[in-house]
């Protein structure tokens, strides 16, 4: 039974909380670390950083990735940057300000203690990455450069051209590769986790499938770390990589791990609009573009003149108009909803009238085309390849797309789920971003969790297990779960229906986007709640997975989509229960007079963590109350 959820945040004053907690936690001495086996699933920023750090410290690490190399994890695609409260620009930044901006940006639905720790560790991350050889952008004097991102009035974002995620991941991957070479980390590539094994309610290991041979095997350890990213691909169309999936966390959820705030999904405002129904994914254009790009639509919905013939006074720079102090750099949720609003008014631009302009002509006039090329060249090239339009000459067209999921498995301050021994890091957990994530903070969180938090909190957990051996994989707990996994794989192959996995996935995605996307309302959510289970039933009766168990991409997808069906239903249920608007969760019934999100702090200032109660039962809601000691809950304003 799960009682009241305890976030286990220490009670020291906020600024000393992590420091004191580090001292209070138990340690594992260097000579004892090799007696502990640790499984790390996923090798993106959080996973690679954690595996490398724990390997360095002397633990026996097994790291798993479904890619052929850890360097391909989707962290690699993050473009714009990583925040750190270094205050190198001397423009008023501080740990407290980064903390404050992040709590406010998350619309007061995150845990203060976690966010403060994140802000506190942000500077260490930059130090660590520079030492690893991450080629951050520099000023001519050789010092590090910064730029601005949404939701902040200081310049605290460190970047490596438009490829910051790539460079940070390469840093973590190289550290991991070093440990693989040293033999402290054993790396399993092209291997997907298909279940979590519990023994006496503790995480004891995982069941995996070798995606090349199809062989299903068991791996045991003293602790399991899930660093498997977010679930944005439930929507089918998103900016996530095609393979990004929720199977690891969803399987853990079905084994008892609570799933927190599943309805908090981030719709990123600057993506290339969809061009046709065959679109396979959406491409993000970095938020950093909003530093210099101005967002507008024609004032007149019927205006189809080429952009250079629309005079200034007939353009509506709606963000600058509505939010004069933040302008084009309002947080993502605000920018996205406003784009949807103008498109819904019929003022959308482009052949399908499904976008808004992001215009660089003013910036090109102000700083020159070369400076703009230096700042955003690779993004402009990427845009031109996809759309065949040159953004140096005509404004980009952008529209919001699913990008990031703030929800995830519930964890306490130590990043441990409610299942002892199961830790969750990075986007896969729910912890730091509340109801809306600010730009350039996902990389920060993944690396803070992986480099600087987990080694302390994991030691604290493992110290209690000294002398205990991991559960052997011939234990019935493993053999039974392994058999289940094998049966499930065989079941996909035996349905032999008529519709492809993608066909089902696209339909599920459309339901979620229509009813649980940028805005939600009760009628739509209730409709989704009846449509999703019906479609899921059909999926299990009619899906067509050809071929056998060895290297079979349809089979891989089938397992992931089957899990998205169940998770999608939970997202809708969570959105339906949360009778307020906050951050990325916008209920049309709950808005201010001028259309901003209207929170209900009296009734909903809590983390909603759902417990799986079986396939045919409704999930059970547990609440972790959120208390705010250091910031005052206010209506967010970016005006």
């Amino acid at each position, binding site marked *: 039974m799960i009682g009241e959820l305890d976030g286990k945040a220490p009670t020291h004053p906020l600024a000393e909380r992590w420091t004191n907690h580090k001292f209070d936690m138990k340690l594992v001495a260097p000579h004892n670390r090799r007696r502990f086996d640790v499984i790390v699933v996923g090798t993106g920023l959080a996973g690679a*950083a954690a595996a*490398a*750090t724990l390997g*360095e410290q002397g633990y026996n690490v097994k790291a798993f990735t479904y*890619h*052929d*190399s850890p*360097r*391909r994890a*989707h962290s*690699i*695609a993050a473009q714009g940057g990583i925040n750190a409260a270094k205050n*190198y620009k001397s423009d008023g930044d501080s740990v407290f300000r980064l903390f404050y901006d992040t709590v406010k940006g998350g619309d007061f639905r995150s845990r203060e203690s976690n966010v403060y720790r994140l802000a506190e560790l942000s500077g*260490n991350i930059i*130090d*660590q990455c*520079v*030492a*690893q*050889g991450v*080629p*951050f*952008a*520099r*000023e001519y*004097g*050789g*010092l590090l450069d910064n730029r601005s991102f949404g939701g902040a009035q200081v310049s605290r974002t460190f970047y*490596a*051209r438009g*490829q910051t995620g*790539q*460079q940070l991941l390469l840093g973590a991957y*190289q*550290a991991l*590769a070093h440990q*693989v*070479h040293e033999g402290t980390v054993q790396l399993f*590539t092209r291997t997907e986790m298909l279940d979590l094994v519990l023994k006496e309610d503790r995480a004891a290991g995982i069941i995996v499938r070798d995606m*090349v041979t199809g062989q299903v095997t068991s791996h045991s350890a003293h602790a399991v770390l899930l660093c498997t990213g977010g679930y944005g691909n439930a929507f089918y169309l998103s900016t996530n990589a095609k393979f990004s999936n929720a199977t690891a966390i969803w399987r853990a959820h079905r084994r008892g791990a609570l799933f927190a705030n599943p309805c908090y999904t981030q719709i990123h405002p600057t993506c290339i609009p969809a061009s046709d129904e*065959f*679109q*396979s994914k959406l*491409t993000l254009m970095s938020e950093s573009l909003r530093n210099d790009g101005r967002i507008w639509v024609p004032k007149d919905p019927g205006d189809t003149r080429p952009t250079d013939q629309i005079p200034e006074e007939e353009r509506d720079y709606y963000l600058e108009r509505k939010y004069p102090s933040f302008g084009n750099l309002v947080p993502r949720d605000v920018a996205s909803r406003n784009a949807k609003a103008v498109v819904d008014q019929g003022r959308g631009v482009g052949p399908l009238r499904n976008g808004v302009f992001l215009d660089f002509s003013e910036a090109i006039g102000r700083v020159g085309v070369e400076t703009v090329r230096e700042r955003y060249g690779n993004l402009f*090239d*990427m845009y031109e*390849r*996809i759309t*065949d339009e040159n953004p140096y000459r005509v404004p980009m067209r952008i529209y919001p797309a699913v990008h990031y999921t703030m929800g995830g498995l519930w964890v306490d301050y130590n990043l441990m789920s409610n299942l002892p021994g199961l830790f969750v890091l990075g986007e896969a957990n729910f912890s730091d971003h509340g109801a809306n994530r600010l730009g350039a903070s996902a990389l920060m969180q993944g690396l803070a969790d992986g*480099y*600087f938090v987990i*080694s302390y909190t994991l030691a604290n957990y493992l110290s209690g297990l000294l002398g205990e051996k991991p559960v052997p994989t011939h234990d019935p707990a493993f053999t039974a779960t392994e058999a289940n996994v094998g049966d499930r794989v065989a079941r996909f192959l035996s349905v032999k229906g008529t519709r*492809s996995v*993608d*066909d089902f996935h696209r339909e599920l995605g459309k339901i979620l986007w229509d009813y649980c996307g940028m805005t939600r309302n009760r009628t739509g959510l209730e409709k989704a709640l009846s449509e999703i289970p019906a479609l899921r039933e059909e999926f299990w009766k009619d899906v067509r997975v*050809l071929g056998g168990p*060895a*290297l079979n*991409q*349809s089979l891989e997808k089938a397992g992931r989509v089957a899990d998205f069906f169940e998770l999608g239903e939970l997202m809708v249920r969570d959105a339906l229960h949360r009778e307020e608007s906050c951050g990325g969760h916008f209920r049309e019934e709950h808005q201010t007079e001028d259309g901003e999100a209207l929170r209900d702090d009296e009734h909903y200032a809590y983390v909603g963590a759902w417990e799986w109660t079986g396939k045919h039962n409704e999930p059970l809601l547990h609440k972790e109350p959120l208390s705010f000691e250091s910031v005052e809950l206010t209506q967010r304003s970016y005006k």
Partner: protein
Amino acid sequence: MDLTLHVWRQPGPGQPGEMVTYIEEAKDISPDMSFLEMLDIVNERLIAKGQEPIAFEHDCREGICGSCGVMINGQAHGPQPGTATCQLHMRKFADGDEIWIEPWRARAFPVLRDLIVDRTAFDRIVEAGGYITAPTGAAPDANIIPIPKVVADAAMDAAACISCGACVAACPNNAAQLFTAAKVQHLNLLPQGQPERYTRVVRMVETMEQYFGSCTNHAECQEACPKEISIDFIAYMNRDYVKAQIKNRRLLGQTS
């Protein structure tokens, strides 16, 4: 657009494969589709007919993860310079075109299925020395060592490599010099990379040679590279490798 595709189909590693022609499945292709979206459509049509879809590697579909990559009419990543397969759009082809699609052809990259190859030899090169030893938590303040902008930019040019393997596939010798040079020089150019500079280059080059052919300066790699990485880095790597052989490494603090 109506196309004729010739695609390499191979059921598994070490098994015989063949080129298979698809005409019906490659009709009505929109020029705005990406190359991989075109393959998605072909696959949906194959599945509808009860035939197994073409296996191909892909993930981010925005040219950064380096998963994708096929030979298109004999060119690695196809006809558009500086473009990974996933970023190539069908408007670069004409109605009625015949397109030949094959996996990377290199002994070090065995085919796993259809268009998917095993590129883990690249990871062995990185594991051999493609890192700076910087244990977590030991780093000094990030601004303590200024790095001239041109140096940071050059390191970034090298670090832009996405490890797709096009350089190897395009090389008549299947050499991996461009990949290895990009990896070596990203770190060897930076002040933080100096302590391990010479051991790094020796270990990485020698590991590379266990898997890949030798470079004879064809420069096909540079042409094929979706990130347009310059072969100048190969020259820098060779310079460091030669220096590493000549210098008294013990005096430089390089003991291995």
